[in-house]
């Protein structure tokens, strides 16, 4: 594989420079929405104008957890649910990095839920992109903490009945400074939201509702990926600035989309430096110190 950035021309897929071509083909099923979100992500990165050498992507485990493996960035495929604390260490050891966590609902919100709420509370300066397909895909279609009643899943053969997380509400109430939701039907809006989230200082969160034709659509007799797109088109309601208490997902009901939160709050590192400066005084040198290469952080 050669350096793709030298191949730019009118006929080159604009996403190509962001992909590890030597890892293709990918594992995602026909009609899956994850690839669509990766397209949006690549475009968002292009439009962001960032130096890609300073962009790192961290994933957990699951179908969306494979995104890190295909992204031609410094990329980390970590343990189940733990992408956020890994990203926290990465960001804090090198605050010049732009760190993006890219994972699924099962990974980020169930097993990783504790890390998600604390990173949002701290306002850790990372972007979290959650592809929410309403179940566990990689392991074969089990119910997740976002599966709405009465959707069927392999571990909910008579239908899910637990109250699902509303991810924007969770992120908002924990202190995220940017919260948006779109579906894979809304590629331009998703791209824009990703771009804004990446540019935002602090804990930014983008949820993308995405179809799992193999497991969710089929088991619930909802048709294929195309029919999911028709559902997203017909039942998405754009409500920018909506109260996140009112944006919960119901089975085949309206999907409230838009940017719900965009506010300012000191990041963890700003707060750390601020507190230490106040308490220690003029002798405190704000973190990170420049020019202490070889001596760690």
């Amino acid at each position, binding site marked *: 594989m050669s*350096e793709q950035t030298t191949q730019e021309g009118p006929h080159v897929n604009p996403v190509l420079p962001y992909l*590890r071509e*030597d*890892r293709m083909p990918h594992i995602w099923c026909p009609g899956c929405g994850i690839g669509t979100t990766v397209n949006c992500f690549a475009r968002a990165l292009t439009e962001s104008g960032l130096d*890609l*050498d*300073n962009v*790192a992507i*961290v994933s957990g485990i699951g179908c969306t957890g494979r995104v*890190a*493996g295909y992204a*031609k*960035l*410094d*990329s*980390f*495929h*970590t*343990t189940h649910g*733990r992408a956020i*604390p*890994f*990203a*926290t*260490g*990465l*960001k*804090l*050891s*090198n605050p*010049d*990095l732009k760190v993006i966590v890219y994972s699924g609902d099962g990974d980020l919100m169930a097993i990783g839920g*504790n*890390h998600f709420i*604390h990173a949002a509370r701290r306002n850790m300066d990372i972007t979290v992109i959650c592809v929410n397909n309403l179940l566990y895909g990689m392991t074969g279609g089990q119910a997740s903490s976002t599966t709405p009643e009465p959707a069927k899943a392999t571990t909910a053969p008579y239908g899910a009945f637990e109250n699902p997380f509303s991810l924007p509400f969770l992120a908002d109430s924990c202190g995220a400074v940017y919260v948006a939701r779109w579906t894979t039907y809304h590629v331009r809006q998703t791209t824009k939201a990703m771009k804004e989230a990446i540019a935002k200082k602090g804990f930014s969160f983008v949820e993308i509702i995405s179809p799992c034709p193999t497991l969710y659509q089929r088991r619930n007799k909802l048709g294929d990926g195309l029919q999911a797109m028709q559902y997203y088109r017909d039942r998405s309601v754009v409500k920018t600035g909506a109260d996140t208490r009112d944006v919960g997902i119901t089975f085949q009901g309206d999907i409230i989309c838009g940017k719900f939160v965009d506010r300012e709050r000191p990041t*963890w590192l700003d707060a*750390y430096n601020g507190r*230490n400066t106040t308490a*220690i005084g003029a*002798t*405190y*040198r704000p*973190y*990170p*110190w420049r020019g*202490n290469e*070889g*001596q*760690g*952080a």
Partner: protein
Amino acid sequence: MKADPAGVQTGRHYLDGNHACCEGALAAGCRFAAGYPITPSTEIVERIAGRFPHLGGLFIQMEDEIASSITLQGAVWGGAKAMTVTSGPGLSLMMEHIGLAAVLETPCVFVDVQRGGPSTGLPTLPGQADMMQVRWGSHGDYQIIALAPSSPQECFDFTIDAFNLAETYRLPVMFMMDECVGHMTERVDIPPADQIEVVPRRYTQKPRGEYRPYEPGEHMVPDMVKAGMGHRFHITGLTHDERGYPVINAVAQDKMVRRLIDKVRLQADQIVRYEEDRVEGADVVLMSYGITYRVALRAMEMARARGVKVGSLRLIVCWPFPEKRVQEIAAKAKAMVMVEMNMGQMYLEMDRAAKNRCKTVLVPHAGGTVHDPEVILAAIMEAVR
């Protein structure tokens, strides 16, 4: 290279083992720590939280030990020397990421100030019952290195060694303190920075596009990298090839796992470390480590006063175990006696290495306090009967 003088409090101090461990980490170049409070280790992170901000470092208190044990790895892949600190219940939660550190070959240090277990056990009282867990506790086959200090001075000295070993072999190094050593206050001499040897991280010198994260180099260990160098590297907890790409088959598994094992197993002679006292000509050789070593020494003197030829083989590096040396001793001594604050963990290893060449005896203790030297003495007298 030599230690950064900024992190070295040269001079004579009166410190407990926990504080000395923090100073050792600073001398070793550690400037990042993630942790979650747990007795009896908490004084380490408390001192870190106070000291690191003055030295260009950073401490973050995470939401749990699971997070701590991977946040430190994120920090390492961002370029820091990093550690986390815990005790038994926290160590149990960290098992997931000891395995991750082993497979990603993340150079890092886990400090375990051991207390009595199982479960919540004896939060404020000592134990040495995490010795097998730390070796085998995460799923799959892997290797770690573990050290056990017996004094606050060694908490300082060996913490530096722990970081150096982590960098040399690119694996998680387990620093196996115990509540006694952690809370015991003694004289600690911190040498001048130019007398402290620090192993710097061996970063790749390869040009962009040519770096392979798991291509073995010196010591069978790949060169390191950090995010932001332009290599656009990928690492994964899945079984992977030299590119770091996942490969899910038996051939890749054999190649990867074999090297993770061999880099310790085949180089164990350079890693093992122990201290001997009057082993030559001894009829009974006492084995011990950590605080138990100091109690065993007392029992040894008592036995020698009774005319029994007793020697001591004290573990400094517990994992890998000094198998060859134990074999040699077992061929000459009448008995080897393992004294440890658990119901028989390193004893199993000693017994295995002795291969029936001599009698092997366990002097167990369930934890909560140190052994009574009289009990060890009785075991020695029984062993030579």
